[in-house]
């Protein structure tokens, strides 16, 4: 059904105002597109909903990191002060959950932060220094004051001329074909 051209990444179209791109995004969502994105210099408030994006999965990685950190803190203090080299200091127990609590607390935060930080880069597939979008002259403006909707060729709805006309009907300004 699609005359897929392998060298085409998709079509892009620029918008000048956040409100325009927001309403255009709602229409792309309603048309049932799966592989598309809106590029902007800042996170547009409410755009996740307008695009129909699910909630980010980062909190799961944060939780995973936090639980790992807490357990690591427990094991670290128990192994070092109570198992491998038990040493009585000030008549205190060799291990208890109380005295090394600051260690467990800090390890929890540290590993949760690692989960969040690396999770963000993993889920966003970064670093990725080569991308067809970078070859597009208009793309540089999207990190300044312009907005762009990109419909990707791998979507089953993609058809070069139809998709171009669809973007035109959304009120976009410059419509360009992105080549791989």
């Amino acid at each position, binding site marked *: 059904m699609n005359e897929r051209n392998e060298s085409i990444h998709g079509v892009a179209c620029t918008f000048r105002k956040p409100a325009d791109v927001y309403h255009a995004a709602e229409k792309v969502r309603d048309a049932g597109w799966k592989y598309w994105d809106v*590029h902007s210099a800042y996170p547009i408030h409410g755009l996740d909903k307008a695009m129909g994006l699910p909630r980010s999965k980062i909190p799961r990685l944060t939780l995973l990191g936090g639980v790992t950190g807490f357990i690591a803190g427990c094991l670290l203090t128990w192994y070092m002060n109570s198992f491998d080299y038990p040493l009585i200091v000030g008549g205190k127990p060799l291990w208890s959950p109380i005295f090394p609590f600051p*260690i467990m607390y*800090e390890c929890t935060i540290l590993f949760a932060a690692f989960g969040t930080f690396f999770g963000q880069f993993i889920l966003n597939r970064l670093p990725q220094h080569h991308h067809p979008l970078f070859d597009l002259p208009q793309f540089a403006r999207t990190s300044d004051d312009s907005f762009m909707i990109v419909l990707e060729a791998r979507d089953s709805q993609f058809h070069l001329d139809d998709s171009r006309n669809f973007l035109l009907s959304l009120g976009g300004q410059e419509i360009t074909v992105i080549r791989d």
Partner: protein
Amino acid sequence: MAYAPDHSSERPAILDKVNPAELPRAKLILNDRGFHWITDKVCGIVEEPTPLWWKVLFTVALFVASFTGVGLFYLVSTGTGVWGLRAPIGWGWAIVNFVFWVGIGHAGTLISAILCLLRQKWRTSINRAAEAMTIFAVMCAGIFPLFHVGRVWFAWWLFPIPNQNAIWPQFRSPLEWDVFAVSTYFTVSSLFWYMGMVPDFGTIRDRATTWWRKAFYSVLAMGWRGGNRQWSNMEMAYLLLAGLSTPLVLSVHTIVSFDFAVSNVPGWHTTIFPPYFVAGAIFSGFAMVLTLMLPLRAIYRLHDVINQYHIDNMCKIILATGTMVGYAYATEFFIAAYSGNVYEKFAFVNRAFGQYAWAYWIMVSCNVITPQLFWFKKIRENHSLVWIICLFVNVGMWFERFVITVTSLANDYLPSSWGYYSPTIVDIFTFFGTFGFFSVLFLLFVRFFPLLPMAELKMVSPHSDIHKH
């Protein structure tokens, strides 16, 4: 049976006539500046040819930083005896400077994390620089305990790394808690700072005209494309890191205060220390933020994005935390009197009237009296005066740590073991140099990194409102 009366018919008629008052929010960006203006302003700082003032300041900062280098070189090649530490004062300037610098860092995290959770949008103009300040201040702080261990080449024994003696760190010690707290703080602050900068690095990359600039910022931006699928994850990660940094920053100064509070020294062994240290840290940190941002605002003409509203807010936080610190000083005296413990009572009377009374009164005048000037709008609007008051606060907070550390150690239980501490020239060199070290790093940050968070500024700009524009 009694029923609750039906009020719907008795609703006072006046309520229909009441018009809610118009309470406009303070403008964060003046003169209706658009997105492109923000990009130009912030990227312009990085893109312009290096200004003369920067070269001069950088040279001066390097020279000042060399004092730390000389001080530390002499210390390592000779021994910690070159510092003024003698029995009974084993914790002199080393710990004073450590707590001073760590405390300064705390305002950065407060601005970036706590104010983010509280949805205080005014933070966006200052958070990047404040976070940079945090990281550099923690680096300065780290120098002192690192070299205080004496044989600095064994400092890695502080970390849970197997060593040739097969002994491990001692987790019952608050000093070991400090190692974990401060290193976690440094790591998490750096990650938070860098992650927030990635989209802004992308903007500089996209505007770059020379190949080396393109290469440098491409690497830093990690190929950021600003797609909303990326933003969605980025915003969530940012919020979570803010949520993690908040308990972290409170725990760091709490644990720093445990270094004192867990001991049995009169004047240190008090439960008020954690909240009192945290309030003091925020107090000194905001003073440092203003000390740095007021000149930068004037040099780079950032008046539209750092306006009187921002300065007012920071002055008011200094006023509030300064008052809390003053209240804590009073509480300490009350508890000492009320405790019935002669050593505790003596420790406080001795602070105010003993051999270090001069330091105590410098502390009180700088920390309790000066910030009270911020009650007056005229003073908050006079930026040279604000800057000078902030310097006083910085000085006062250094003296607070000096008073706490030194007076308690110099005059504790037995008069026969009392002493008087004074720093040596090596102490002075090392501390003086850290201001240079801090300035070197901060100047590099100003020159090469986005000074203001562009993406966040655009987010709070009225132009981003999809319902109006």
